């Protein structure tokens, strides 16, 4: 029967946690600088469409993913209707910077923004 005392917080913890927190905030802010030119719609790891982001405001649907509705405006793309239950991709807003993504997991659909310097799918994040 040993009783263990649990401490609420130690000073060293805050050091670790603040470093981790600031690093992650920094990583959030750095990558998305360049405006993208096209949005690749990827379904099951295959590119099913490429939508230029330069066009004026427009709503569109794709035959390969008929349950989705997308809009392009101000150089950004967003999903406005999706068939899944949680609607995460609809709520994640518009994406317009190179490398930004909108992901709809239940249907394995993904939108990736690419720029002019063309490297097919930037899949090397891992």
């Amino acid at each position, binding site marked *: *029967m*040993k*009783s*263990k*005392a*649990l*401490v*609420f*917080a*130690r000073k060293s*913890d*805050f050091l*670790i*946690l603040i470093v*981790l*927190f600031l*690093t*992650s*905030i*920094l*990583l*959030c802010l750095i*990558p998305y600088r360049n405006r993208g030119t096209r949005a690749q719609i990827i379904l099951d*790891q295959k590119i099913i469409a490429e939508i230029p982001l330069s066009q004026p405001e427009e709503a569109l649907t794709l035959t390969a993913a008929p349950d989705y509705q997308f809009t392009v405006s101000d150089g950004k793309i967003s999903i406005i209707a999706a068939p899944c*239950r*949680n*609607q*995460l991709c609809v*709520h*994640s*807003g518009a994406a317009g910077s190179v*490398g930004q*993504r909108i*992901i709809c*997991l*239940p249907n*394995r659909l*993904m939108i*990736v923004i690419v720029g002019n310097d063309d490297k097919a*799918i*930037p*899949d*090397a*994040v*891992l």
Partner: protein
Amino acid sequence: MRSKRLALDSILLALAAAFSFLESMIPTPVGIRLGLSSIVVMYALLCLSTAEASAIVLLKACFALITRGFYAGILSLSGSFLSLLGMLILYRMNSSLVLMSCIGGFLHNLGQILAASLFLGSGSVFSYLPILTAAGLTAGFVSASLLRMILPYLPYSNCSIRSSQFLKGPDK
């Protein structure tokens, strides 16, 4: 005494399931949540036993599977199991409550990203890791503070409230 304990476990499970269900109804970008059910899991881990905490995590995932579909169930299971594992290790290492809870929150999101990347067959979900890390750490800190506040009113928590050593763990 055993049946009393079983009743307590059931209440905790119901509470955890209700928290996670209610949170799932609030739409947020990238699915960031506060993770209030982690308070329940942490309480079970600290004051009851590892087995009871694992059971709550497992059954909560089953609940998510039934009410919110296959995909939500898998994400719930992978996230909360990794988080529970990490918290258990930290607890054994005598870490503080805040560190345990924050790392637990971070690991929860990491587990979900791992599961999602397996599911999508691509690592591109990892671009969400920074924002989810920041969110997980914040949520972890909030849950730790909440647990500290409510713990004196809970059963099996022989606690002495002091800012540095406010809680005595379970007797094994």
